[in-house]
């Protein structure tokens, strides 16, 4: 179980010494990801989802709040407990050292692991073959190669294999398929799903594409993040079929419709143009772009919580389910 409470993070923007602006990347985020569970952080770039993922993976510090891994509070990124969370980066091309073979890449963490667990040296190579097998690669043909000799999809599998060398409890996949060829993306998603089922590794998906989040499993939880705040949270299926926050609705409306194969949703929500994000609002963070805003939205800020008649948590004064998702015409 990995959970966080009230996580905040502020970045200082570089600029002149005197007028250094600060950006609130996270404004008190709570999350719980059970052992073997799945969760997805959804939102536009700059919403804080990647920062949160990096904090959870121990690659970034946080300002206030508390993160606990299996009940133990962890603060410093140097804490060894953070090694239980492994990040799968977006770019499989820079995630592997081009001057090292796959064997060398896997050996380094395995040697460390062998020392920690007092395993014999022979275990290292066996395990290297094993993790490559786990991610669906043929160990014999891959192990002696350099990254440039592998396709993007294969590299991403090697990256996942490397993460598995430390027996992680959770994998954080940050847009892990966006730089991979379309026909191979699903293979990576399927692999993560499969690892979850077989090894009991929990998976945290960070993406701007809600449809990929759906692939990870029906028991997964969806966190929709906007400007550092979770604005809707619930099970994947509930949020896709009955989103109540206008921002979630605009995200879902923006997914391209495969005309001919699908029928667009009848009530698409198109947000007004994104305005200067540097401006701090007193009210709802989404109010300026929200087509349904009222006076109330501009003065008070809604907090994430449950209201009557809505199964999922949300942060909206006027929650209303809208039919925005394209429907499948039932072919292929």
């Amino acid at each position: 179980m990995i959970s966080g409470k009230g996580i905040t993070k502020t970045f200082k923007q570089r600029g002149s010494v005197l007028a250094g602006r600060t950006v609130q990347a996270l404004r008190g985020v709570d999350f719980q990801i059970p052992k073997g569970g799945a969760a997805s952080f959804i939102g536009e770039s700059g919403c804080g989802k990647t920062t949160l993922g990096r904090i959870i993976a121990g690659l970034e510090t946080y300002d206030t709040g508390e993160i606990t891994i299996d009940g133990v509070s962890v603060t410093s990124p140097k804490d060894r407990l953070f090694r239980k969370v492994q990040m799968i980066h977006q770019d499989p091309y820079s995630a592997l050292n081009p001057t090292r073979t796959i064997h060398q890449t896997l050996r380094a963490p395995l040697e460390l692991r062998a020392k920690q667990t007092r395993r014999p040296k022979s275990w290292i190579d066996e395990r290297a073959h094993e993790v490559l097998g786990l991610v669906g690669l043929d160990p014999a043909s891959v192990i002696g190669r350099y990254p440039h000799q592998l396709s993007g999809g294969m590299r991403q599998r090697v990256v996942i294999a490397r993460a598995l060398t430390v027996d992680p409890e959770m994998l954080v996949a940050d847009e892990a398929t966006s730089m991979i060829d379309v026909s191979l993306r699903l293979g990576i998603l399927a692999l993560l799903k499969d690892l979850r089922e077989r090894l009991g590794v929990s998976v945290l998906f960070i993406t701007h594409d809600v449809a990929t989040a759906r692939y990870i499993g029906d028991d997964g939880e969806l966190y929709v993040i906007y400007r550092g705040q979770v604005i809707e949270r619930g099970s994947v299926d509930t949020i896709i079929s009955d989103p109540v926050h206008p921002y979630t609705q605009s995200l879902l409306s923006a997914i391209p419709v495969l005309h001919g194969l699908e029928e667009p949703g009848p009530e698409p929500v198109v947000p007004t143009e994104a305005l200067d994000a540097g401006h701090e609002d007193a009210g709802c963070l989404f109010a300026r772009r929200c087509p349904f805003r009222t006076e109330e939205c501009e003065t008070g800020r809604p907090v994430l919580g449950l209201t009557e008649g809505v199964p999922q948590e949300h942060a909206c004064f006027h929650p209303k389910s809208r039919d925005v998702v394209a429907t499948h015409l039932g072919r292929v």
Partner: protein
Amino acid sequence: MSIVLESTSATIRRNFWNGVWRVMKRKPSRMVGVVIILGFAFMGVFGPMFFPAQLPDNPDAITQPPSWEHWFGTDPQGRDVLALVITGSRYVLLSAAVTALITVVLGTAIGLYSGFKRGRWDTVLMRITDMKLTIPGLPLLLVLATVWKFGNPIQMGLVLGLLGWGGVARAVRAQTLSLRERGFIEAARGLGLSTTHIIGKELLPSMAPYIAMNMLIAVTGAVYAQVGLFFLGVLPYESDNWGVMLNLAVFQAGAMITPTALGYLLAPLLAILLLTLGIVLVVDAMDEIFNPRLREE
């Protein structure tokens, strides 16, 4: 299993040298460069052995123009110029090699540490580097020459090396700063690998072409610097070397006005030119040698 392991790392090493050979063969110019550099190395190591410690002089044949007997003529004491170039090469090349080694080792170590650790250490080290960069090398050498005789090439190399690492340190630091943001470095940190591993096994190999290039270029720089110093005559003529030869050719044999002394002037110049050429031709291959993608293609 461990036998399998050793054999794989041995295979990688063998593949590396096979790759280097392939890269060198790709362009004939690189082979020429290698031959030139090997030639100079041979000359520096074994050259002086073929000649007596005191080269025979000949008062009857002073400042001769090039001939079959003396390819580059003779100096004002009647010694063979080619023999002078060869016996003088050891000092020049040895001190240049020492300079290059110190420049690169010191520069890389400081740059890597500074760029990787960042924070306080970075600030301190970079201030030192900046201070060092502002010390003008030539006046310092002049001052040092009054107390030190630089008779020993290693001394010479040491001083030039200690004066020269600043630029490399700055450049390596910049490279480190950009590399440390790469995914594979972050992944290594996330996996809990040691700093020694990250710097030695992940960062350093990625910078190898860059460091090798700097090293080769530092050799030419060092040759110019010390030949220049000796030519200017600011260092005492304690030994035969190319700089001293140039100085004598111009100021003693009057090579600028006496055509017969032209060989005396040209021989050391040609040697420097040839060495530079060899290095420039080889530098071109560094990227391909250390980048597995370019190497294997």
